[in-house]
């Protein structure tokens, strides 16, 4: 198949990464974005580049993507605000510390650096944590980026055509825009994040709302992304609102504070009660946060799938429609791995990792 025209719907980090990879392999890319490049969840998310091991397929995709970000970020650290600060996962009790020890081996098996921290090592790395914690886990290869600018940068490299409009319908061989115009292409890639169901209502995607808070500049207050190990546990409790301690040092010296998850809430307003719970949780882990000055609070939506893995590949029932969505709370990380998978599938070349766990067909019974 000779590369030709592709329309990408959605200029978040996933759409821009796909545009970048496809343009690199010879496709003529048209991107349609309703707001501005790098908006949506991409403008809201923490931008932690994180290897996570909740499932083997998640670890493979995040580990692959973490390496790709390292290459991209090291080449242009200022553009991406790439900070290779690593993550410290904090164990709250001995049970979680045992879990941390088990995780060390699963990270090692994936070829990643992982280090078990005893209490002394934990406080050496992050002295502002509350006293009395047993230890934790340090993943040195994790990093932090500023994804809105990365998205813009990735897009600028493509030389493609950007259309500022909203896609209102996908039809065979193209899309219809809000202004009534039709665009034609052999391949359409849906990368509209948590809004994916607006165009394809049968997709198994639910929005999971989160709140974030940014502080004024306090350089040196923390040195890693610092999160509670219970985060993974809390974060994926189905259908239950949850909060977790998860804070991040920005390149500016600011602290970005998260996190919480609420299902099926469609209003962007700040929920004061949830915000309060989330911040109290963070103060409980790091009491010094209490007096820091906050500047802004915002919300965003993660595109959650039933199995926590993204949808990458052809839609099994709609010819010409390809999906790159459903990245939940990891899409900034996994955007680069996603783009490589999608391009390999479209170009019939061999992908760096096995694409099967992410293929959309897993949710669609055969005809």
């Amino acid at each position: 198949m000779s590369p030709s025209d592709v329309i990408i719907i959605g200029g978040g980090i996933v759409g821009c990464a796909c545009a970048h990879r496809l343009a690199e392999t010879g496709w003529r890319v048209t991107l349609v974005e309703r707001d501005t490049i790098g908006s949506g969840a991409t403008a809201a998310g923490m931008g932690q580049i994180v290897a996570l091991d909740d499932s083997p397929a998640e670890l493979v995709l995040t580990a692959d993507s973490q390496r790709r970000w390292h290459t991209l970020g090291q080449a242009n650290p200022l553009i991406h605000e790439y900070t290779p600060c690593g993550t410290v996962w904090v164990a709250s009790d001995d049970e979680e510390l045992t879990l941390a020890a088990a995780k060390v081996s699963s990270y090692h098996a994936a070829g990643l650096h992982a280090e078990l921290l005893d209490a002394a090592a934990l406080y050496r790395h992050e002295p502002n944590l509350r006293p009395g914690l047993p230890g934790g886990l340090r993943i040195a290869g994790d990093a932090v980026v500023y994804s809105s600018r990365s998205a813009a940068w990735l897009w600028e490299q493509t030389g493609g055509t950007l259309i500022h409009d909203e896609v209102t319908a996908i039809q065979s061989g193209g899309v219809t825009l809000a202004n009534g115009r039709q665009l034609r292409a052999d391949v359409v890639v849906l990368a509209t994040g948590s809004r994916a169901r607006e165009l394809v209502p049968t997709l198994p995607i639910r929005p999971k709302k989160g709140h974030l808070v940014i502080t004024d500049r306090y350089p040196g207050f923390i040195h890693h992304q610092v999160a509670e190990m219970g985060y993974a546990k809390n974060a994926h409790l189905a259908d239950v609102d949850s909060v977790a301690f998860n804070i991040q040092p920005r390149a500016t010296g600011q602290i970005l504070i998260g996190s919480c998850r609420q299902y099926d809430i469609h209003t962007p307003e700040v929920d004061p009660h949830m915000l309060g719970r989330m911040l109290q949780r963070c103060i409980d882990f790091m009491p010094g946060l209490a007096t820091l000055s906050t500047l802004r609070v915002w919300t965003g939506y993660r595109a959650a799938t039933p199995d926590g893995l993204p949808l990458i590949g052809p839609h099994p029932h709609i010819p010409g429609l390809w999906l790159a969505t459903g990245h939940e709370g990891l899409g900034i990380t996994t955007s680069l791995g996603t783009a490589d998978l999608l391009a390999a599938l479209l170009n019939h070349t061999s992908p760096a990792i096995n694409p099967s766990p992410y293929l959309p067909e897993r949710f669609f019974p055969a005809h």
Partner: protein
Amino acid sequence: MQSYDVIIIGAGPAGMHAAHALASRGQHVALIDDNPAAGGQIWRGVNNKSIQPARAALESPHITTYYQTRVIATLASQQLLVENPRDAHLLHYRHLIIASGARELLLPVAGWTLPGVTGIGGLQALVKAGMPIANKRVVIAGTGPLIWPVAVFLRMHGAHIVAIAEQQSLPRLVRFGLHLARYPRKIWQAVGYAAQLIGVPFMADSHVIAITGTTQSTGVRIQRGDHQFQLTCDYVAIGHHLVPNLDIAQSLGCDTTPAAVTTTGLLATTIPHVYAIGEARGIGGLDCAIAEGHLVAAVICRDTSAITQWQQRVAHERQLATAIAATFATPATTPLADDTIVCRCEDVTHAQLQHARDWRTAKLQQRCGMGPCQGRICGAATQHLYGWGPDAVRPPLRPARVATLALLQTISTDVE
């Protein structure tokens, strides 16, 4: 949680008079202000005869004052989250009065970030706080009625006013002067200002195109008609009239225009139990603010005879507000140099912004408006310069401690 009949946000002339008039009718009132004392931006620390009685009345046991206190969030169920330098509180109200006043519109011009350049009200505040001004050469520029009392104030404190450079044309200013003729007190005030400013060069139709200096302002370049000239000075006070503080009203969901909170003739906003008075209703000055403070108290207490009396007074004072808006509300901007900083918190220059699509793109890609002021300064500037719409208002309305926001976990989740 503390609960009050009425909470008033802003202890300027409008808020002080409302507090006084409500307390004298037996209402329990909380008066909240960011400043360490009552009086508002202009009249704080000044012994003005018209506000003295209200200031004294704040001692009333019916009034609780919350100074150095900022409203951080407006919540459902008629609650406010407020913060002071020590702690934070949730307060409950039956009626809420927005008397949040106005701030100076500061528009970028080449050199405006040099030390020695301030707003007009800003320089007055610095001098009130003890900055020595005697024998310093000051140019006052920009536009607005604030220029005159501040020029008098600075001269009384020994400043040498090099010149007053007003953007508006002379005919426009004369028309405004004719309006004043219907307000005897204002006329005497104006005559008084003129007498105290004898010998100060006044230039109409004059636009500052650059402030010069390398480490400190040393002068201004002014364009008047077709020619330009340079003035030498130590300080430049430059402001472009006032803009009302609308964020609290917007946070409550009240309808607003760029110039005012939308209200009925009886000062009610579009949200039940919420009123707006003073500059928040549009820039109207001291007498207007005082009259609206009285009127809102009469409205809340259903004092019909007082309502009629104060309503007439307010209508009269508001005509002047219309004239003020017609004269001063559309300041001109001069072309900027590429390296002129527009967003001071994040050091974002005109060159970085002029080709951006919109405010959101400028924010996400250049960090414009992401600093501590959250666009309160640069938002107004980019609206004037590039026509970008303002940002959505949301909590925290001012920078707030993490612990203050954490207090929100205590509010009930099943709010009405």
